[in-house]
């Protein structure tokens, strides 16, 4: 039975299903490292998913689909930054507002513009020559047989780590998230840095949504993400604000997801509800242990005020 469960296709779906988590959680990592908690990720993902889908549905162009998702993500990211940074609103609450806006608006637009569930042809799998043919342990199938956005997501992990740890911009982000007063005294514009990170987070959230609607599932429906964006926020804590940690969390989570799909397809004598619950239960357990040893940005959720 073990061979039936842990197949190469399960590991392949693990990699594939990790994509939206990685995009959204990496974006959220940038925001949180600079001290802004964006709980509206799921709402931005839904809007990105819808606009990406709609652009492809109308034009058939995947490039336009991605562009539409990035653009709406950017706009909602800037709106989030305006509320959190400029208006200094309570971030936990305003994020829920952004989520509900995205949830309702994407549903409304879907009803008005499309109506019934339809599918589009999304990003096709790319068979990487030679590598995708490796039979040994199913490596070809697991790693080298995915659509473009999967590769982009995994490529963004080292890139994000490099930006955060090795660039002047990354240093500013870390300083602003740990001690905004110090960053301010060193001549850094705290608000501008936070706007930029939240905008990046918005764009990546939009892309995360599009990765569902035009690459993984190729459909749009009401509440397509079903709370995936909230898991992405949790993954940032789980990954201790480090891109590779976040990727590890995303993989663990998508692995349990993939396993759950496999188990339910095998008609084993396990109530399917348990299988559906499993990823969330595991997340909570993992978070309980992960959150104890935090390297949390100390200024997270705290608006910056010079006191003038």
């Amino acid at each position, binding site marked *: 039975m073990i061979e039936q469960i842990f197949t190469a296709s399960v590991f392949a779906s693990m990699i594939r299903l990790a994509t939206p988590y990685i995009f959204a959680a990496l974006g959220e990592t940038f925001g949180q490292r600079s001290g802004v908690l964006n709980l509206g990720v799921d709402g931005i993902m839904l809007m990105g998913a819808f606009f990406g889908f709609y652009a492809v549905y109308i034009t058939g162009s995947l490039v336009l689909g991605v562009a539409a998702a990035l653009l709406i993500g950017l706009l909602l990211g800037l709106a989030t930054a305006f509320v959190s940074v400029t208006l200094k609103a309570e971030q936990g609450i305003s994020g829920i507002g952004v989520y509900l806006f995205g949830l309702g608006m994407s549903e409304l637009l879907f009803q008005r513009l499309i109506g019934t569930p339809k599918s589009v042809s999304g990003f096709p799998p790319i068979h990487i020559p030679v590598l995708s043919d490796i039979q040994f342990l199913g490596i070809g199938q697991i790693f080298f047989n995915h659509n473009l956005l999967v590769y982009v997501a995994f490529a963004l992990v080292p890139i994000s780590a490099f930006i955060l740890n090795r660039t*002047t911009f990354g*240093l500013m982000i870390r300083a602003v998230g740990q001690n905004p007063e*110090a960053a301010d005294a060193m*001549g850094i514009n705290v608000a501008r840095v936070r706007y930029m990170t939240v905008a990046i987070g918005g764009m990546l959230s939009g892309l995360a949504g599009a990765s569902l609607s035009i690459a993984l599932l190729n459909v749009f429906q009401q509440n397509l993400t079903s709370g995936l964006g909230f898991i992405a926020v949790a993954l940032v804590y789980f990954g201790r604000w480090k891109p590779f940690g976040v990727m590890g969390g995303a993989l663990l989570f998508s692995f349990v997801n993939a396993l759950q799909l496999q188990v339910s397809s095998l008609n084993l004598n396990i109530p399917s509800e348990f299988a559906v619950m499993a990823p969330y239960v595991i997340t909570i357990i993992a978070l309980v242990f992960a959150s104890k040893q935090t390297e949390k940005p100390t200024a997270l959720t705290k608006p910056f005020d010079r006191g003038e």
Partner: protein
Amino acid sequence: MTDSPTMRRIQHLHMQGIVKRFPGVLAVNHVDFDVQAGEIHALLGENGAGKSTLMKLLYGLYHPDEGRILIDGAEVRIRSPHDAIMQGIGMIHQHFMLVPSLTVAENVALGMKSSRGLVLDLDVVSKRLRELSEQYNLKVDPNIPIWQLAVGEQQRVEILRALYKGAALLILDEPTAVLTPQEVEDLFRILRKMTSEGHALIFISHKLHEVLAISNRITVLRDGQRVDTIPTSEATKLKLAQMMVGRPVVLEYERPPCQAGAESLVLSGVSAISDRGDLGLKDVSLKVCAGEIVGVAGVSGNGQRELAQVISGLRAPSGGSIQVGGRDVTGRPPSVLNTLGLSYIPEERMVDGVIKEFSVSENLVLQDHGRPPYTWGKIFLNFRTIARTCKDAIRAYAIKTPGPDTPVKNLSGGNIQKLVLARELSRRPKVLIASQPTRGVDIGATEYIHRRLLDERAKGTAILLISEDLDEIMALSDRILVMYEGRIVGEVPGGKVDVRHLGAMMAGASLDA
């Protein structure tokens, strides 16, 4: 880091007619201030006199409502710290502006352009930092994270960073507040070297002897206005104190000989876990007798906070025993300790001392509000008694407040501290724990609080005075204990004390060494 503004000289900086208003307050009122290359100009004043505000205006953190700033005769506009840095102005803040999780080099590189464009050049920064630290004899490892450095080392990083950025004029906001006497001497040595190389320094302080020791000129501010600027050679402690307070003050108290009675507070081998999770208090034993003031000296963060909390029942000891008035009270809650005659003046008065939204009268009966005479039948508050007691306290302790119903948050630091003192002393304590009783309190109120503590001593109260202010410890204590890394490392009798000896113990050298 090629773009660091090349060390431009500031021969003369002049602030003219500076005005800064905050809602309801005129924080800086038409102040003129100037500083020249090669001099240390001290800015002296009480808390709230406007020293820090004036300097934040110069550093671009605040913007003046009126007035102008001239550098070498030309008017400059400083809209942000970035502008200030570009003009060659650096500032060492009272609370260090360092990011604890970042390394020394990263903190220096922060906000500067890199020689590699977008990519950090920390190796280049480290190399230059090493050169600078040799030049000024300021030893710092560039690759160590800030949180691993002691406070004095963190200050060196701040100074190095300012030098790195080419500061020609350096503002030091209360730089000695967190240093041991030895570290203060080191700092002064560095400052003198900087002036000899043509830097202009502004030294903010409220400690008279330091200002007298280091500065060339002194400007005194009071209530947002400049009282006067005088050459240091013409200044004396008494004269400066009078300028600061606006009336004659007494700087030394008469202390009748100690009439030590029974042992009122006894700690044997007490240990406690700190908030960081390590052993913050290690095997501490001490005794305080009735009618005696025992001072606990030490640099901030060496277990003083844990000591005060353990005795007052706010932190559970992990070992040892505590006796108050001969009764074992180890691990008992504050309510029990209160009834045994223990009073506590906490160091964080706004957090642990008062409820700042509550009124003066409510705060005055915070512990005893549930008992007669403040209640009818233990259920209903007796507002008439509360009001009367409160009026008496306000008068007796000279608490400046618009009325008993004013929220405490609207009072000044000194008056809040007097309120806490009034409340704790009105309970006629046998044992008083006073933790940093005059931190952030103006000279006038400090003088008053010191007198009340000496009065309590005369009445036979056992007082444990925990303070980072050595002057305070030396002025009041009959015996002085020194804490270092959670232990008591030495004891010296009060009165004539060798400051250097005390400072050495505060820095970790043991008494017998």
